[in-house]
């Protein structure tokens, strides 16, 4: 399969990339890891006039924790860099749990975190993590930068609110209020398949109590689902069994699964309940042990 024809540019700075987007007048597309875009070009679901490849902008290839504890992920940070980072595995458990479950190991060498969030696939893993973690996207355009909370960044399936001349340069995960705990569980038929259902959980704990919580669901609706009520039920609690059961039920309640070849709607709803409960129980257990 061959993509339709396009003009290709590979700028070496963010400013040049933005100038090219401006020139493209809405007919340009950013190419980062390309693990979703190239298949879409080949299937001709996408046929941009101009492809702006940002892989030569070395300044976007990073992830680090800033002094205030926030995690910054540059637009060229590949899934495998997050998967193999000791910083991530010790300080950001939700991201650490999801990274090895994104697509397959070969796709993870090229695909990027920020690109995946921009792609806004309702079955994408990172959007759910971003929602659970209250993440933000930093967009840069001709007149500077702006920060967009992920909940307003994704506007629908495969849609985001970036202006045609804006580049998503970074994702920011705010510092935890206390100790960051969390996880990600995904049911897939085989490695690399889209999620049948998945749950991202991020819980900050201080003094044995939950100070902040986020729960988001993958693959059970037209977009990533923010299980805000389920998360709110956890705040102030000590993650006792009763609270966990209620949160799991609330999470399953907001899922909007559809029956398809991966499973029936009721099965998927059941999975959301089970995964939420397992993730929270695991978090409670590990926190008790650490305390």
């Amino acid at each position: 399969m061959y993509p339709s024809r396009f003009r290709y540019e590979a700028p070496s700075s963010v400013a040049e990339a933005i100038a090219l987007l401006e020139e493209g007048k809405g007919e340009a597309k950013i190419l980062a890891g390309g693990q979703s875009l190239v298949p879409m070009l080949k299937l001709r679901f996408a046929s941009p006039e101009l492809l702006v490849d940002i892989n030569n902008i070395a300044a976007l290839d990073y992830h680090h924790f800033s002094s205030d504890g926030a995690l910054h992920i540059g637009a060229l940070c590949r899934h495998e860099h997050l998967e193999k980072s000791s910083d991530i595995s010790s300080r950001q458990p939700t991201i650490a749990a999801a990274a090895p479950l994104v697509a397959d190991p070969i796709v993870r060498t090229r695909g990027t975190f920020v690109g995946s969030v921009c792609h806004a696939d309702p079955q994408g893993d990172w959007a759910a993590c971003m929602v659970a973690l209250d993440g933000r996207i930093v967009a840069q355009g001709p007149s500077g930068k702006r920060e967009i909370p992920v909940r307003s960044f994704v506007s629908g399936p495969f849609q985001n609110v970036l202006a045609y001349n804006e580049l998503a340069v970074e994702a920011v995960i705010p510092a935890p209020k206390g100790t960051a705990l969390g996880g990600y569980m995904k049911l897939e038929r085989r490695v690399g398949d889209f999620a049948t259902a998945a749950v991202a959980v991020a819980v900050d704990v201080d003094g044995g109590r939950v100070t902040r919580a986020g729960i988001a669901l993958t693959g059970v609706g037209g977009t990533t689902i923010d299980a805000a009520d389920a998360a709110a039920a956890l705040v102030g609690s000590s993650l006792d069994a009763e609270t966990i059961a209620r949160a799991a039920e609330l999470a399953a309640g907001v899922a909007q699964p559809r029956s398809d070849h991966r499973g029936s709607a009721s099965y998927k709803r059941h999975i959301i309940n089970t995964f939420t409960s397992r993730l929270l129980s695991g978090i409670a257990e590990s926190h008790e042990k650490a305390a």
Partner: protein
Amino acid sequence: MTSLFEEVHETAVGVPVRRVTITVNGERRTADVEPRLLLAHLLRQGFKLTGTHTGCDTTNCGACTVLVNGRPAKSCTMLAVQADGREVLTVEGLASASELHPIQEGFKEEHGLQCGFCTPGMMLTAKALLEENPNPTEDEVRWALSGNLCRCTGYQNIVKAVLWAAEKMRGSAQ
């Protein structure tokens, strides 16, 4: 089949063609390509390196895996222009003139293939794994190869082949 690589040249009137220089198996190669040409097609039809197989052409199977700057990449999911200035290793670059690569030997010794279609991708993914982790467990091998599909073997002997190669490579490193 007329190679697409040439066909693109003939029909490229008015379409901007880019010159790329790629180090393929240690040798600098230069080509003029249309930006939409996939790396897999440049390798196979342009450079006649047909050891890189295109299986699914939809980023699922991993048969077309090559190493780009040492990391495995599905060459059907990468534009040839994106390899400009990079190093690409294909299965043709594994063996030396006189000797098989230990991974190739492993696949021979442990019967790690039946039809052989997935084998080049398997071996290159295995090479990247063993460079990073010279002493992998069976689980780690299975995990690393989980993006490469094989429809014949049931994977048992592929995993054995990689473990065989790992042992041989550790031995020769001492």
